[in-house]
């Protein structure tokens, strides 16, 4: 299989899943579209270095998560230069999302996840939204399963606490 064929296979098999992951990180349809294109451009450029030492899925996903985190870090710096907070901007983005058609509780969940520290956010998105097994996640994030489980547990507790507060405010 040559590079083009492999790349097309990756697009066909993983593009939708990667888009959903990107969507969870950036909380915007247009930004997720942009980020997904950046991810696949990175995949295309890095293809010669893929020697099959990792599974294709974990290799692709690792690039996706790293690109998403890089993008968020750049956004954080740009927000700081405007004396703004990325957390506040994310909340606004979630509130004004024209492609969101869910419940207030789901919106509160998105906000709670967006407010998590970097590592916990990664783990929560991959575990809760993408339903990725810990063993796979361990290869994607290059972290031990035990550490991932601990991160997920802490993240879940934080999210639950925020949701309880939000539920009280919304009288749910």
């Amino acid at each position, binding site marked *: 299989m040559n*590079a083009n064929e492999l*790349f097309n296979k990756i697009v066909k098999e993983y593009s939708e899943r990667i888009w959903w992951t990107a969507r969870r990180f950036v909380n915007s349809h247009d930004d997720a579209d942009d980020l997904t*294109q950046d991810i*696949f451009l990175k995949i295309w450029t890095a293809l010669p270095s893929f020697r099959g030492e990792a599974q294709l899925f974990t290799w692709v996903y690792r690039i996706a998560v790293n690109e998403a985190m890089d993008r968020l870090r750049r956004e954080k710096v740009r927000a700081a230069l405007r004396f703004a907070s990325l957390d506040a901007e994310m909340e606004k983005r979630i509130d004004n999302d024209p492609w969101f058609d869910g419940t207030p509780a789901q919106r509160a969940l998105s906000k709670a996840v967006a407010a998590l520290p970097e590592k916990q956010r990664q783990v929560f998105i991959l575990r809760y939204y*993408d*339903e990725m097994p810990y063993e796979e996640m361990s290869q994607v994030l290059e972290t031990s399963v035990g550490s991932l489980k601990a991160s997920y547990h802490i993240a879940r507790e934080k999210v639950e606490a925020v949701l309880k507060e939000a539920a009280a405010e919304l009288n749910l």
Partner: protein
Amino acid sequence: MAKRCGIQTPDGYFDSLQSRLVSIADEAPSVRKVGFVRKVAPYLAYAASLVAAVMLGSFILRKTAVSDSEIPAWEENLVAEVLMSADPYAIVFEPESVNP
């Protein structure tokens, strides 16, 4: 499949996304392996600039260092007194030109 949790997408979005992604291979510059020299070139540049900074710093320090003959005699006395009070076992040789 991933949980959607209230997020929608336009009809046919993923088909058009796939078409656009596939065209990356046609539009992006042809992929070629990066040679060893190109890979290490940035590190060589950092190392060279570090060496240059150290050499420049040494040069400046040498040029601005005060030689012994330029130190006034009264400052030498002060140093000698301080040295003696700090370390009674220190042996201080007074230059012949300085009065005890």
